[in-house]
């Protein structure tokens, strides 16, 4: 190797406290160094030109620049040496500004330190190898997992962006939580009215394939080339024939199945369409409730169906999708307040959760929009809202704030006033979190214009006395114990990752936080990316958020996926792990430690197993390199030899020339 060393003065930034000439001179005593020179501004155009000229004229095969932080200019110099025909990875930097000249005024010590850093850089460079980026094809198709508002937004944006999209929804209709809401805050406009058209767009968009009543079974492959198996759960209704007329629902004799769409406030038929605006508007049979499927009797729906769509023999179907990017938008589940025994949810009929209340408020809900006590169907006189149920509660392992409940409660309190003008409305709260546009004003309106009484304090217990539900708590502002005889208690429940989120995370090889929310690539800078290239996050699956944030993130995730798939070929970063199959003993430790699932074991022609890195997936962290005992797997550009060369250069007694 013929190495050129360029020591930057950086004006006086370096030269003031480092003797750059001495550093250059010491470099001339280093192995393979054929040329060493000080440069006024190495990164400037003349500086870069000098480097390029030296490469060309002197036949340099490697370059070290001692200047600022590589985080600043590594790419600059890599491009410069590349322009002179050198592989950009035959370049190293020694940081003698941020780590040397700027942190000490001791010129002698700085000069020595700079010389040693140059020595380490040269020694590393001697172990470098030119690396090539590899290019690979991509599938110009995306998958969105979860058809709530975030997933819908992502799917629509992706489809509008020109990609084809597969949208996978677990329920028989898209819409998610938002479809269950009556109104949205802070505008109090109709949830279905704003979501419905989007749902229709999904159904009608030529670029979108909708898989409702389906789940992701498995995911293999890597960015640009995912292969996803989708399980279409049996609906027992041939959707190609079903027109959504609803005749089957009318005739179905089984009417005691839980109505999941209405949050079990009511029961429903075994066959049916969950709600009038459902997309797709197709019937599904609940096999647990259907008399034919459970007891072998009945079959009324098959008789009445005008298109003969009923198929009791239907089985789950597997569909293989090839996609280039995946957006996870699996949303959240509401917290089950039964875990808080002191609130009596599930035991006292007039204690319901906020989503149930939302269904009660809805004109299409089980009470057709009438606010009633579930125990006797009478209109309540006193309605109590309890906030932070299942949120900010360390004892439940939920220290986080769910974010949307304060506003939802305010909205529901306001709506309660509209439905029951005389009601006494009390909200127990700990803090009010209303930071977004128009939120704080909305809460104030609830208090001031709608006469909602906000009591600051935690509810200690809720119990039943006669036909009343007593809420006991403390008003910490007044410093007094409070007991309220309520007719209806609404628990403002928080959220948690949706059921199956962890399993999906494993399939997607993305990580989850301690609660099960998906981890973003970086909390600030990569909020919709994950550490698995090609997998993006939208909505509450990443962390609880309200509708506008979910929609924004859906669009953001779509934009990221569009950027990714806008290219015909993807380039992989060549700083990836590489396996020497001769050394590999196939123990798979690398596979188990890789955070990205980038390594797999493959069989050799001798029948043994060796590890193989999927370059496109590897992010280059090097965790595998350490786990590998015989060092068969090496992270390119940070190989053991390269790091050891630096260690040796800095530690061992140095035998200089002459």
């Amino acid at each position, binding site marked *: *190797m*013929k190495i050129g060393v360029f020591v930057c003065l950086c004006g006086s930034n370096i030269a003031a406290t480092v003797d750059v000439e001495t550093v250059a001179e010491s470099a001339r005593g280093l*192995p393979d160094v054929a040329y060493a020179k000080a440069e006024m501004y190495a990164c400037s155009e003349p500086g870069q030109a000098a480097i390029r000229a030296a490469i060309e004229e002197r*036949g340099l*095969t490697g370059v070290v620049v001692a200047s600022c932080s590589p985080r600043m200019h590594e790419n600059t110099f890599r491009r410069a040496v590349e322009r002179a025909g050198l592989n950009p990875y035959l370049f190293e930097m020694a940081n003698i500004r941020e780590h040397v000249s700027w942190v000490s005024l001791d010129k002698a010590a700085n000069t020595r330190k700079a010389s040693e850093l140059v020595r380490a850089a040269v020694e590393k460079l001697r172990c470098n190898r030119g690396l090539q980026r590899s290019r690979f094809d991509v599938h110009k198709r995306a998958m969105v997992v979860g058809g709530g508002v975030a997933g819908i937004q992502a799917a629509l944006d992706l489809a509008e962006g020109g990609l084809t999209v597969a949208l996978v929804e677990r329920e028989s209709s898209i819409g998610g939580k938002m479809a269950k809401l009556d109104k949205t805050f802070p505008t109090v406009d109709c949830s279905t009215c704003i979501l419905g058209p989007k749902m229709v767009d999904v159904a009608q968009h030529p670029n979108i394939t909708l898989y409702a009543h389906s789940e992701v079974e498995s995911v293999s492959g890597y960015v640009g080339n995912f292969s996803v198996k989708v399980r279409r759960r049996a609906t027992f209704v041939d959707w190609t024939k079903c027109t959504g007329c609803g005749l089957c629902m009318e005739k179905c004799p089984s009417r005691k199945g839980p109505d999941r769409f209405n949050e079990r406030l009511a029961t429903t038929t075994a066959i049916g369409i969950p709600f009038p605006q459902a997309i797709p508007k197709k019937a599904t049979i609940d096999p647990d409730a259907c008399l034919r499927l459970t007891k072998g009797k009945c079959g009324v729906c098959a008789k009445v169906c005008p298109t003969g769509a009923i198929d009791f023999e239907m089985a789950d179907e597997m569909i293989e999708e090839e996609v280039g990017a995946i957006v996870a938008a699996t949303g959240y589940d509401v917290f089950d307040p039964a875990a808080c025994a002191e609130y009596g949810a599930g035991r006292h009929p007039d204690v319901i959760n906020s989503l149930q209340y939302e269904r009660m408020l809805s004109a299409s809900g089980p009470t057709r929009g009438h606010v009633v006590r579930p125990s006797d169907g009478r209109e309540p006189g006193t309605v109590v809202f309890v906030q932070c149920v299942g949120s900010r509660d360390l004892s439940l392992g939920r220290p986080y704030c769910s974010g949307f409940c304060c506003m939802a409660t305010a909205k529901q309190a306001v709506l309660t006033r509209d439905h029951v003008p005389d009601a006494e409305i009390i909200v127990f709260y700990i803090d009010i979190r209303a930071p977004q546009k128009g939120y704080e004003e909305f809460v104030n309106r609830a208090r001031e214009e709608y006469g909602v009484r906000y009591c600051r304090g935690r509810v200690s217990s809720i119990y039943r006395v006669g036909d009343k539900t007593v809420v006991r708590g403390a008003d910490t502002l007044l410093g007094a114990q409070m007991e309220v005889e309520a007719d209806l208690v609404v628990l403002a429940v928080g959220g948690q990752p949706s059921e199956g989120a962890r399993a999906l995370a494993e399939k997607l090889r993305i990580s989850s936080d301690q609660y099960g929310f998906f981890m973003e690539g970086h909390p600030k800078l990569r909020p919709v990316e994950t550490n698995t290239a090609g997998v993006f996050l939208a909505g509450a699956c990443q962390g609880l958020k309200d509708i506008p944030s979910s929609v924004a993130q859906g669009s953001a995730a779509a934009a990221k996926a569009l950027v990714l798939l806008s290219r015909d070929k993807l380039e992989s970063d060549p700083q990836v792990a590489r396996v020497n199959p001769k050394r590999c003993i196939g123990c798979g430790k690398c596979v188990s430690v890789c955070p990205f699932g980038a390594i797999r074991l493959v069989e050799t022609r001798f029948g043994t197993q060796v590890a193989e890195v999927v370059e496109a997936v590897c992010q280059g962290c090097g965790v595998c390199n350490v786990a590998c005992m015989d060092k068969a797997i090496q992270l390119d550009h940070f190989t053991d030899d390269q790091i050891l060369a630096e260690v040796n250069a800095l530690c061992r007694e140095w035998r200089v020339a002459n």
Partner: protein
Amino acid sequence: MSKRANPYLPQPGTIIDVVEETPAIKTFRVVLDDPEAMLDFRFLPGQVAQLSVFGAGEATFVINSPPTRMEYLQFTVLRTGEVTARLHALGVGDHVGVRGPLGNHFPVAQLRGRDLLFVGGGIGMAPLRTLLLYVLDNRADFGHLALLYGARTPQDFCFGEELATWGARRDIDVVRTVDAPAEGWDGRVGLVPHVLEELRPTAEGCTAVTCGPPVMIRFTVQALEKLGFGPERIVTTLERRMKCGVGLCGRCNIGSVLVCRDGPVFTKAELDLLPNDY
């Protein structure tokens, strides 16, 4: 202190030319820095030398320039390990060490007057080149010449230009073969031993000299015997077994024979006397 020659001491040399033969093979031309040492450097075809890359170590290579052309010493190097990788990174003007000549040589005296069949595979062409050039430089002393040279793909042939020159000569038959059909290749296809059997060279009056990977040698020798080449008439070289090169380190033994001292060139007849340990 007794003044005896230090058998470990290389002579400093400088690379004067590098030829990229294939993606994995380079040829290095080296002259010793001491002009007198260069003049004193006497060897015969088949002898080897240890090339040093200081800091990486030494490795054994056949000197594949013939002793009849002493402008430089030529070594052809397949990149396999640390030393060869470091060698490949060197260029014109870089310094190496040369320790040699070492070992015995092809039995040129016995070959005189005979027909010669060269059978080479891959990097194994290098030792054959030395002998072939030596023979061509003393063309009148030898009978008919034939060369069968096999490589994995058309890109893996070394000495491209020379091959063309030899191919154009009337006094030598050159056949090249690759392991598998390849685009743009109109030469022979097939493994060396198979092609050899197809060619059916005459054993009468002929000595075969073969070199290549161990598996190829094994089957080539079998094919040659089938064709009627007697064990005395099959010559090969085992220089890949050599370690220290001077008979001291002990690691190249085959039975009581040390390849570096008693070889590396052996006839099949000589090998037949040794245990099957190579």
